[in-house]
């Protein structure tokens, strides 16, 4: 650090390239997001005319007004919140229990159970067999199917196992046993309070997975009132596309009019994307640190 003067030409090019790469990457990530933001606030004629880059032109809030009035969207939000909350609670309960039991080295048959829980990582069940199972259980087109789906991720179980095994001192187990505590009491009163960091990390992963899930609702839900935000957004954008296409066919009648209608539907799409990504953008600064920790914890081999 002190020897700036004696730096070689090679060192200078190295530093230059490193910082240039960071700058280019930062801009490459930010510009598309800024373009979506800017377009959502711009007037339809500027959007259609291709005049919007990364700052809004001629402030226009019509897109947001229309999108935010959609009852469909708010129902999607509500459904997503329900699925994320209950789905995360359920998945977390299963993962912690499985992780705790499988972390106990004094469990007879442990390696067999670990194998059972890990196998789905290597060999997955089929899509149609999964669908038929849900149908036979009468779960198709219910809220329960989304909450139950994918609750036991082998990877999260293994992270929990390795954390419990490495971070919980054996002396605590012995001490609580002498005090006459059962294994379940030990889990509730000692293991869970000690393991808050890893539980926070798994909670965040599972919650983000639920919030962003598109596959399960696409597969198992039919009624529009049950659809989560992801599917609702996709349908809304698709419908806007179709209506824009219809209008495009009307060009002979009034080109000017049709263009502005296409413009409005495009601005609505931009607004919808912004509205849909808001919860993540608002929560992101608060949870970012935990995710970084999670990756590091997750890389410790169990």
């Amino acid at each position, binding site marked *: 650090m002190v020897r700036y003067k004696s730096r070689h030409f090679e*060192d200078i090019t*190295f*530093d230059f390239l*490193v910082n240039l*790469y*960071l*700058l280019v*990457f930062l801009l*490459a*990530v930010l510009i*598309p997001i800024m*373009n*979506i933001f800017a*377009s959502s606030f711009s007037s339809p004629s500027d*959007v259609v005319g291709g*005049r*919007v880059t990364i700052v809004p032109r001629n402030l226009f809030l019509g897109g947001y007004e229309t999108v935010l009035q959609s009852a469909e969207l708010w129902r999607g939000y509500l459904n997503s919140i329900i699925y994320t909350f209950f789905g995360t609670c359920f998945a977390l*309960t*299963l*993962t912690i*229990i*499985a992780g*705790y*039991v*499988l972390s*106990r080295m*004094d469990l*007879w048959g442990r390696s067999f*159970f670990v194998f059972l*829980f890990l196998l*789905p990582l*290597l*060999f*997955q*069940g*089929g*899509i*149609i*067999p*999964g*669908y*038929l*199972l849900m149908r036979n259980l009468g779960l198709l087109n219910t809220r329960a199917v989304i909450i139950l*789906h994918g609750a*036991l991720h082998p990877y999260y179980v293994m992270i929990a196992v390795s954390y419990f095994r490495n971070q919980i001192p*054996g002396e605590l187990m012995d001490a609580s046993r*002498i005090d006459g505590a*059962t*294994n379940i009491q030990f889990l509730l009163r000692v293991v869970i309070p000690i393991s808050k960091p890893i539980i926070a990390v798994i909670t965040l992963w599972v919650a983000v997975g639920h919030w*962003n899930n*598109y*596959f399960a609702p696409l597969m198992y839900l039919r009624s529009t009132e049950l659809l989560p935000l*992801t*599917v609702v957004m996709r349908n809304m*954008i698709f419908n806007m596309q179709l209506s824009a296409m219809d209008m495009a066919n009307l060009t002979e009648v009034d080109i000017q009019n049709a263009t502005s209608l296409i413009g409005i539907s*495009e601005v609505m799409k931009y607004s919808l994307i912004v509205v849909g990504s808001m919860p*993540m953008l608002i929560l992101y600064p608060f949870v970012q640190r935990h995710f*970084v920790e999670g*990756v590091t914890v997750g*890389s410790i081999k169990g």
Partner: protein
Amino acid sequence: MKSMFEKKIISDQRKRFRRLSLQRNYDLYLLLLIPLSYLLLFQYVPFYGYLLAFKHYSPVRGIWGSSWAGFQYLRQFLTSPQFGRIMWNTINLSLGLLIIATPFAIILAVSVVKSRYWLLKKSTQFFTYIPYFFSMVIVTSMIMQLFHPRVGLINVVLSFLGMDTANFLARPGAFVPIYVLSSIWQYSGYGSILFVAVLMGIDYELYEAAEIDGANKWHQLFFIDIPYLMPTISVVFIVRLGEVLNVGFEKAYLLQNSLNLEASEILPTYIFKLGIEQGLFSQSTAVNLFNAVLNLIIVIIANKLVKKLRGQGVY
């Protein structure tokens, strides 16, 4: 004292261990029953459902009751005209991701660790993780807007530069580049975290010693950083190699349209369409089984490779 005594018994006699474990830890087994029953029902019953691949499925008679079809559906897929194209698309897409996208995350990690501009470094880290948290619907909607033939930023810039604009999403040839490019945008930041952690763990004395020996930063990069990163890189590569045939369903499905289908139809989307959209349960399951078995073989081979490389497998 008590604990040491117990440990001795355990190591001495297996039978005693079993009796002791069952006796003292019966509540653990009861506890395990909760996740275990979920596991067996939702993960293992669908394994049994693979039988469908060898049956003429009849909704009335169920999986077991349907009549046997043997390898008819499997053969039908392997000899169908789509087979070669779908396999090519799947492998093309996932190898493209693996080989082109991963280096971006590694270089990003090196740059973050080596940069001396604190603000640039921190803001790059902060902002490049964001796209990872967007749902695939948001990401693909953004892609569709950015590549929009009329209003999209890409075409706005192209026409500004005096180049021809195009509807890229309707071009089969542009599908893989768009997919890979957007994945770099989406995952590089988050993917770099692991490599950053490895680089931060390198002892600073190594760099000091290298400097005294006259090594410049490029030498340090090639003789310290990269050798230290190599084990992690190889594990990441091989874990991803194991996922070659499971390349993202959601993104490909959401970016598909009738015009780019030629390049965008991959195994997972084909399985989904065949089964859920067309209702051909047996055909879909046959392709699904083919995919799962092939994947298992690749994972096993990849794991063997990891074992050879670093003496310990991933699984």
